[in-house]
């Protein structure tokens, strides 16, 4: 029973006043409406919420202006972001009336990827999915359905549903993005790591391009550091915005960051520049580390990374001299090396070696309520901690996950189950992985985009085609939704409430999550509701014992209604004072505020690390013999190929930017950066249409000649060359992930974002 969309009805329902012109024939989507018909019902006062245009999840505020538009700005209560918002964040409201957004569930009627759809009701959609899931459960077992969900709130609901259904195979996006440094932090420091950029005097940045892949708080901190005269040294094959703003830019060879870091470390140790006292007192495994990096002298590594030995030495000396106000930035996103785990661990250990941890201008451990409260005395007030609503136990699962996380011998043990190695899903759909006695037969994908974001498009598509069921939840027909059997329309973030989150920087903090700014448009539903209703359809309703988000929030705060009220009003709240364990002044302030904490302060006026810093990993050693650091040269490309790397642009980074008209208008196609000398060899001129190709794929784009790149390297912004025909500019520009190999990093499980390509003029 598919019905033709009646947008007249829809608009009457959604806004009361609007009528419609330009009926679109694409089932399920909103279709074009004229600007007078775009009416926004919502708060005229700023409502604090959280941005969803990229994964940084910045604190924002938004208000409806004369019913005609929504203005979004940063939440002024958030000091770290200064009430600022980037171009992506500012464009958010544009999604609301995007004619291409989905407002009804759609079901595939042709082949996967053929683009033939019919519109269905929510009930039909739920029934279909529930039935299919039941079938798979009976035929192969519930564990053969993989569930991948966007970081943050969506994960909470769907990982919960997955486990209630009986699948241990739950994943986030991390293996395509930040997983390795999170794992490294856990291994070395026992937690993730914060960076006090603003106060640093010296920063080594290896392609952490926060001025283009804008992370507002980082961008601001880096900028204040620069303004305060800090020296920032950027190593990047390309003149990124960060490189251009830095005091020094070194064109490191793509894929060869690790040899640089090892040589840097080698200098710190050999020249005895490291903080002996700090290491002796707070670290374990120094001798093993020393031995493992002995051979990586700057002279030996210089030709590997293409940074001369003298420079490596100089940088190491300068860095050590600036410590503890020094940060070796461990970066974010793109995989820089085939040895991600070694690379990120090595980077993170450097700060420990120079003693720049838990000190102003260095690294710090994020302090959530649990961490913070553990330091407080009995009489001190405690940071609130959120409660998890009680739900029934999940059914027992006898088989391992496809990434074997949770098993004794698992090489990816440092990843949490909620992260997992999602890039293994396509592989596990095509073949049984070692030690995994089954294949994946279904994929439930919530606001994640494997077709765009996983390395090697070919494998992903083959896997999707081999599955029995592919469900996508998204607010638009993303590239992945394009291949799904059924697509459920999520609301955009401005239309939904979400639960409270707790975290911590230098002290514990809480966020309201998202708050509805405007009434939802059409029949789209927030993910919490989709999960709950689907669960009910699947007979799993008891797992979702909350009426709505407000009810869930109340259960989260328990008796602390004031906390909820304050969060709703201000958006965020922090507890206590900032604390750096190894900073005398900071500790003194902390004790002044919480006298009971005095007991934890040592004779030097500092607080000891809760756990020793691990410079050698016994567990990694046991599982895969990788406890120390080692460099194994990797062949990224053939001799006659160029390196291909990618990165973020300031306006289009994540799925939400992919189809946003305003952002697309700013940057509709990302050109390939090519050095003029290289271009000359290939007879390519600026603006020429070119093909970038290798054995995995051939991509078309335009050449941009610039001296801001190595001669042996081609660069393109990612997030272009969309496959879904329901996105604007589909097919325009280079789909960089299609050029990458199907690769799973040792221990990290990460994709690889360096590969060899050739170029030619079309």
């Amino acid at each position, binding site marked *: 029973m598919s019905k033709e969309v009646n947008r007249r009805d829809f608009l009457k329902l959604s806004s009361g006043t609007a009528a419609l012109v330009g009926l679109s024939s694409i089932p399920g989507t909103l279709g074009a409406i004229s600007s007078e018909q775009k009416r926004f019902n919502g708060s005229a006062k700023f409502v604090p919420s959280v941005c969803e245009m990229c994964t940084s999840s910045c604190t924002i505020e938004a208000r409806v202006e004369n019913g005609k538009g929504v*203005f979004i700005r940063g939440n002024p209560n958030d000091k770290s972001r200064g009430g600022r918002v980037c171009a992506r964040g500012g464009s958010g409201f544009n999604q609301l009336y995007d004619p291409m957004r989905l407002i009804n569930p759609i079901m595939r009627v042709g082949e996967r990827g053929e683009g033939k759809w019919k519109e269905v009701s929510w009930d039909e959609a739920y029934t279909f999915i529930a039935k299919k899931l039941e079938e798979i459960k009976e035929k192969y077992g519930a564990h053969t359905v993989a569930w991948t969900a966007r970081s943050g709130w969506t994960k909470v609901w769907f990982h919960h549903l997955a486990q209630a259904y009986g699948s241990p195979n739950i994943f986030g996006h991390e293996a395509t993005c930040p997983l390795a440094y999170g794992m490294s932090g856990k291994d070395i420091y026992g937690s993730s790591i914060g960076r006090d950029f603003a106060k640093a005097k010296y920063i080594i940045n290896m392609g952490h391009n926060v*001025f283009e892949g*804008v992370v507002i708080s980082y961008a601001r901190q880096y900028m204040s550091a620069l303004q305060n005269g800090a020296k920032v040294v950027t190593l990047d094959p390309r*003149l990124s915005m960060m490189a251009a*703003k830095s005091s020094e830019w070194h064109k490191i060879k793509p894929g060869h960051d690790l040899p640089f870091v090892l040589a840097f470390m080698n200098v710190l140790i050999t020249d005895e520049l490291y903080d002996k006292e700090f290491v002796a007192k707070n670290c374990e495994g120094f001798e093993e580390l020393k031995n493992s990096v002995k051979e990586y002298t700057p002279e030996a590594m210089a030709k590997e990374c293409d940074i001369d030995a003298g420079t490596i030495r100089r940088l190491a000396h300068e860095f050590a001299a600036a410590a503890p106000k020094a940060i070796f930035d461990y970066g974010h996103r793109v995989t820089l090396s085939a040895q991600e785990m070694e690379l990120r661990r090595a980077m993170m250990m450097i700060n420990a070696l120079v003693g720049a941890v838990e000190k102003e201008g260095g690294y710090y451990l994020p302090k959530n309520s649990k961490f913070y409260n553990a330091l407080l005395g009995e009489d001190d007030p405690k940071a609130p901690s959120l409660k998890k609503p009680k739900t029934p136990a999940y059914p027992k699962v006898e088989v391992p996950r496809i990434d074997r996380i949770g098993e004794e011998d698992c090489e990816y043990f440092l990843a949490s189950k909620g992260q997992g190695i999602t890039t293994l899903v396509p592989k596990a759909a095509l073949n049984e992985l070692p030690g995994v006695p089954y294949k994946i037969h279904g994929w439930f994908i919530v606001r994640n985009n494997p077709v765009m974001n996983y390395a090697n498009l070919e494998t992903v598509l083959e896997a999707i085609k081999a599955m029995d069921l592919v469900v996508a939840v998204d607010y638009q027909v993303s590239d992945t939704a394009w291949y799904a059997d059924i697509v459920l329309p999520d609301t955009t973030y401005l239309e939904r409430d979400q639960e409270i989150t707790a975290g911590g920087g230098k002290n514990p903090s809480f966020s309201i999550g998202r708050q509805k700014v405007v009434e939802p448009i059409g029949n789209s539903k927030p993910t919490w509701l989709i999960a709950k209703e689907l669960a009910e359809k699947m007979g799993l309703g008891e797992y979702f014992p909350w009426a709505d988000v407000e009810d869930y929030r109340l259960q989260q705060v328990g008796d602390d209604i004031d906390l909820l009220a304050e969060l709703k009003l201000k958006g965020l709240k922090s507890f206590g004072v900032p604390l750096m364990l190894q900073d005398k002044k900071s500790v003194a302030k902390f004790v002044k505020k919480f006298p009971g904490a005095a007991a934890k302060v040592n004779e030097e006026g500092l607080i000891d690390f809760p756990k020793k810093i691990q410079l050698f990993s016994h567990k990694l050693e046991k599982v895969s013999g990788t406890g120390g650091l080692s460099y194994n040269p990797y062949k990224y490309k053939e001799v006659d190929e160029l390196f291909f790397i990618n990165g973020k642009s300031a306006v289009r980074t994540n799925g939400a930017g992919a189809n946003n008209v305003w952002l697309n208008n700013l940057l509709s196609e990302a050109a390939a950066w090519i050095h003029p000398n290289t271009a000359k060899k290939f007879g390519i001129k600026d603006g020429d249409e070119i093909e970038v190709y290798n054995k995995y794929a051939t991509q078309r784009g335009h050449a941009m000649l610039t001296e*801001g790149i190595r001669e042996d390297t081609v660069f393109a912004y990612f997030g272009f060359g969309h496959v879904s025909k329901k996105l604007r500019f589909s097919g325009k520009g280079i789909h960089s992930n299609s050029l990458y190999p199907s690769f799973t990093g040792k221990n990290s499980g990460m994709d690889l974002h360096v590969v060899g390509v050739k170029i030619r003029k079309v």
Partner: protein
Amino acid sequence: MAKKYGMIHDENLCIGCQACSIACRSENDIPESVYRLQVRVLGPKKLPDGNMIFEFHRQSCVHCENTPCVTVCPTGASFVDENGISLVNTDICVGCLYCNAACPYDARFVNPITHAPDKCTFCKESRLGRGEEPACVSVCPTEAIVFGDINDPTSKISKVLSQRPTYHQRADLGTEPKMFIVPNKKGGIQS
């Protein structure tokens, strides 16, 4: 004393992220095809010492003190308000585009809805009345834009102007823009 509104664009702090451009569009309801403001990222430029930098050119009305656009407008539709903001009264504009032709800063475009020239208004119609800073200023992640009353010596803009060297685009024309630019000096030292 009447206000004299001005703006600073600090090229050192600007990262070319276009947040300002989007905020302007959002707040002032600018049609999709046109821009009151663009930040052009030019280069890379190689400095004599081998450094490479990008230059950041803010393309918008610079709010001239001596306004060529107002001088030539035949109907008085282009005018400057009491606070020094250059504006267009679309009601009495005939759309001759004499002002567009006269503006040395390419600041004006034809608004596809009103058919009259449109340009940066320092957000007079949308925000100044509410006591808010212009949209572009309010969102800039790195605080590269400063706005305020130049006549008020205690304002932030006056302070920054007294501390930092600034220049005008096309100063030779004698238009005396109220848009001040802090030149870009940063850049990596090429190894």
